[in-house]
């Protein structure tokens, strides 16, 4: 995003005073202070506030938008509480050290906050500020000037597919969704309660807001996109959506903050790395109960604040450096969700001890999952295990329509076999329109996954009977034809 020229930052469009409700009803000094009656510009501007909505908007925005203003202090965009909370876990209890860390964070971290005005009127101060459109109030903040001006290095590049070799998020390519289509005002304005981190926010954006499971008797909402695949019911509350549906995203390593010789603050990190890793959720909660989540390495190091105070992070190992992530690289089909065995047998997609730096091993001990157990070992109670694993689709046994996975041999190997009733088919709605437009056949998928057992629908007695009837039909036709020829010839001769 190109920076604004100085005049562009300050230019107030005269139309704002006539067309925008704020311009029509409020004079400048009502919000910004100052004295309009004073003819001396210097004294007239005394006490003028650039952003009257920060830190407390109650005297400006709150006069009309009282309810939203009340929740202002719980908005993570304003308070940046998760930054403070998580850093405090790592900082020791020494008050002097804490004060120095606070000073460092105020200098380097806490400037990235937003406010009512910095979303709805101007660009955020952290990117230089400047009025977005001549002081017009934008009910929905523009993505490019406000959302991605701060969330540009990761979210913008991920969502719009600007990382080399990584496709854009399907919500952008297929739905042209803006940030605010999922992250609504309610979430941005705070819930009214203080939260430890953003995953605890009760009114945050959730995949389930639109993507609902099909439950018999339960109607789907208007904007619902039904979840058709049986894997959703199997993995519900165990595996996060992103674990199956996101692709490579950004990981940042190391971070040091300091001041240059002119006294200007700076930060320094290692070059970021793209990758995809599944780890354990370090802190499952009621809101995020999943055991398996996508994790990313965050930009932190033991010597982060060394410029201000040496070894400030004495409790560094009390929080993981690989933390839960919600990448904005969502795809319907991903390398890890192509079949069951990709995740259930291979360690390729998981965070392993090899991925964790030795000095960070202790802090990530609860995040690194145990290595995958081969299916042959997991199913070692089965007789002829390799034959079963080769010929039986996972979902046939691990079916959500059954109360528990099939373990009784007679359930399949009997005349009343459960397989004959098609238990592998999940009863759900299906869009015929989708089916026709995607020009794909279900059996193509079965073939690719090698789930179809050739000849499984053959019945020998039926085959023999059908062939017999066909041959009989053919023979009758031949005899009928032969008799026709013979009688025709005889009749021809008798005429002669």
């Amino acid at each position, binding site marked *: 995003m190109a920076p604004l020229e100085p005049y562009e930052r300050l230019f107030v469009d005269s139309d704002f005073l006539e067309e925008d409700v704020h311009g029509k009803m409020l004079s400048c000094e009502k919000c910004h202070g100052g004295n309009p009656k004073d003819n001396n510009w210097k004294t007239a501007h005394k006490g003028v506030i650039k952003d009257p909505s920060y830190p407390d908007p109650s005297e400006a925005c709150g006069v009309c938008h009282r309810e939203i203003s009340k929740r202002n202090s719980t908005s993570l965009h304003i308070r940046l509480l998760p930054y403070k909370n998580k850093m405090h876990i790592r900082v020791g209890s020494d008050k002097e050290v804490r004060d120095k860390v606070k000073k460092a964070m105020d200098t380097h971290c806490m400037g990235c906050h937003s406010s009512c005005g910095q979303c709805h009127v101007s660009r955020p101060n952290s990117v230089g500020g400047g009025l977005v459109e001549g002081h017009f109030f934008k009910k929905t903040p523009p993505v490019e000037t406000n959302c991605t001006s701060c969330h540009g290095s990761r979210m913008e590049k991920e969502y719009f597919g600007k990382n080399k070799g990584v496709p854009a998020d399907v919500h952008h390519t297929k739905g042209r969704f803006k940030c605010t289509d999922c992250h609504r005002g309610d979430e941005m304005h705070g819930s009214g309660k203080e939260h430890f981190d953003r995953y605890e926010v009760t009114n945050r954006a959730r995949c389930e807001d639109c993507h609902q499971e099909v439950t018999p008797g339960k109607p789907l909402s208007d904007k619902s996109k039904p979840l058709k695949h049986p894997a959703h019911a199997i993995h519900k509350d165990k595996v996060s959506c992103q674990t199956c549906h996101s692709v490579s995203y950004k990981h940042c390593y190391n971070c040091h903050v300091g001041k240059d010789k002119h006294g200007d603050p700076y930060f320094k990190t290692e070059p970021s790395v793209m990758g995809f890793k599944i780890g354990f959720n370090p802190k499952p909660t009621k809101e995020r109960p999943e055991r398996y989540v996508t994790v990313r390495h965050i930009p932190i190091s033991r010597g982060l604040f060394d410029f201000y105070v040496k070894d400030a992070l004495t409790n560094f190992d009390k929080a993981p450096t690989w933390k839960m992530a919600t990448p904005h690289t969502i795809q319907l089909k991903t390398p890890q969700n192509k079949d069951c065995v990709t995740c259930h047998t291979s360690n390729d997609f998981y965070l392993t001890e090899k991925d964790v730096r030795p000095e960070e091993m202790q802090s990530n001990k609860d995040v690194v999952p145990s290595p995958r157990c081969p299916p042959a070992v997991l199913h070692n109670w089965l007789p002829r295990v390799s034959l079963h694993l080769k010929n039986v689709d996972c979902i046939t046994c691990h079916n959500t329509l059954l109360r528990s996975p099939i373990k009784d041999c007679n359930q399949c190997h009997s005349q009343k076999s459960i397989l004959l009733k098609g238990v592998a088919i999940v009863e759900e709605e299906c869009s015929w329109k989708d089916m026709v437009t995607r020009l794909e056949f279900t059996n193509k998928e079965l073939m690719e996954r090698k789930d179809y057992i050739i000849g499984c629908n053959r019945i020998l007695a039926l085959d023999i009977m059908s062939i017999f009837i*066909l041959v009989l039909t*053919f023979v009758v036709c031949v005899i009928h034809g032969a008799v026709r020829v013979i009688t025709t010839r005889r009749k021809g001769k008798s005429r002669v």
Partner: protein
Amino acid sequence: MSEKIYLHTMVERIWHWTNGFLIILLVLTGMQLHWPDTFTFFGAFSNAVLIHNWSGILLIIDFFVWLIYNIVSKRISHYILKKEEIYPGLIVQAKYYLYGIFKREPHPYTPTENNKFNPLQKLAYFVYMFIFMPLLLLSGILYLYPECSSLILKIGGLKTIAIFHFIMAFVFTAFLIIHLYLSTTGDTIFSSLISMFTGYEEKKEH
């Protein structure tokens, strides 16, 4: 002396040969799908699957083309049996095929532009197009997209659909054999076949 009568319109002829071609393709691919170790007409098993899938979809389209055309043009009346064609028509025609044809008796029902099929043809084609064909296509669709309908679970699962589809395939194959043979029972061996290309059939005066 003979005169030509116009029996089969251009649309009907195109539909007929498309239908015939697709049925033969479906039978051959179906044979490879059912007995892949015996028949390999189309190379890999997946080739047969793909051709069978697409032929099935085209047959559905072809069926609706036939249905809509016949309803709109009112030529569907050719397939409806009249009272006198049921009795004694069906008996008379059956006797002809079982007995009269060998004595070179004249056809009891000669085709006209308004009534081109004999009673047995009408009955056979009616059952074929209005009962067997929809059942074949429906079972094919359910077999093709089992996840899209709960009907499969209600009628006993995929196995039931598979068996039903297989039986229908044999009915169609048997029909094809009989149809091919009976097409030779016109005034000459090839007269019916030629009329399906030209649309005209020669009406001989006996």
